[in-house]
């Protein structure tokens, strides 16, 4: 594996080829907020909270730290006016669905996000997919999945699999950033069918 040298927040970092920017930052103790990331799971890059500003090849743009591989000589800023502004809007968009989520509220405070900026559509779920991916990748049970697309995307349990497996597992519940309200709700609904 080749060594790659990059800069994060002005600090020089030695990383291995194939590492993500997030991993490189963590290796020197720089914290980047995440919601859909989990170290046991494959990188997903969906929530975009881990967005950082990166300069590569003379171009500066926003990249998702959890999926973007480190590149030689890249310069990363984990906080900047642009980064903070983007995270603020993303949080406000998610808070419209899960206004009571503790991790979201903590981040909202940090980035000055207004949980009432957008009209509430409480669905509790922010579609981070941690439950779906954990069930598939770690437990290999596939009791829960995504359905539909766009604004209608949601998670749903497969009743016949959930009824035989979920009560005794429930390992996905604590992963949920919006408390497991939604997961529990959907599960019960599925079991009662």
């Amino acid at each position, binding site marked *: 594996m080749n060594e790659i040298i990059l800069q994060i927040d002005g600090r020089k970092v030695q990383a291995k080829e194939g590492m993500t920017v997030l991993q490189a930052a963590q290796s020197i103790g720089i914290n980047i907020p995440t919601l859909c990331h989990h170290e046991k799971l494959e990188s997903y890059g969906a929530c975009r909270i881990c967005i950082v500003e990166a300069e590569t090849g003379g171009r500066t743009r926003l990249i998702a730290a959890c999926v973007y591989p480190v590149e030689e000589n890249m310069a990363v800023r984990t906080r900047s006016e642009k980064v903070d502004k983007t995270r603020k809007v993303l949080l406000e968009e998610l808070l419209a669905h899960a206004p009571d989520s503790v991790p979201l509220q903590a981040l909202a405070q940090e980035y000055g996000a207004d949980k009432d900026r957008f009209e509430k559509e409480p669905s509790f779920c922010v579609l981070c997919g941690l439950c779906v991916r954990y069930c*598939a990748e770690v437990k290999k049970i*596939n*009791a829960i*999945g*995504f*359905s539909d*697309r766009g604004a209608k995307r949601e998670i*749903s349990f*497969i009743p016949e*699999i959930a009824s035989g497996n979920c009560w005794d597992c429930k390992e996905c519940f604590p992963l949920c950033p919006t408390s497991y309200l939604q997961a529990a709700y959907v599960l019960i609904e599925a079991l009662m069918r």
Partner: protein
Amino acid sequence: MFEDKVDEIIDQYQSDPSALIQILLAIQREYRWVSKEAIDKVSKKLDVPLNRIHHIVTFYKAFSLIPKGRHEIHVCTGTACHVRGAPRLLDSVQDLIGIKPGETDLDLKFTLETVGCVGCCALGPVMVIDGEYHGKMAPAQSEAVLKNYA
């Protein structure tokens, strides 16, 4: 009868999991919907988890989890049709058959869908019924066209 046909379709694709979408399309075409039994069968034979199939049949617009009507009406809502009055054509079709896009009437006669673009932009607004194209449709003409479908 049902069993045979789904098996036959799966066999045509040599039970290849990457042909999953092609198999489901063939099932949709054959039965005008994808039933739970069909999903279970495909899942078992292709060894693909149910949640993936469930995601696919709800993600792609071609699939329906309830039986579609004998006649499928697709009103094109592509940009060219839109600026040429597709919303009004759609309104008039909805009024005539009493269902909204995505719905099927109780007699299973019509299913109404909108489609992003059928590529007949020069003829907009366009309505496709059972694969037959009706171009330059004025809302007032829709009744006469629909009458031809029993």
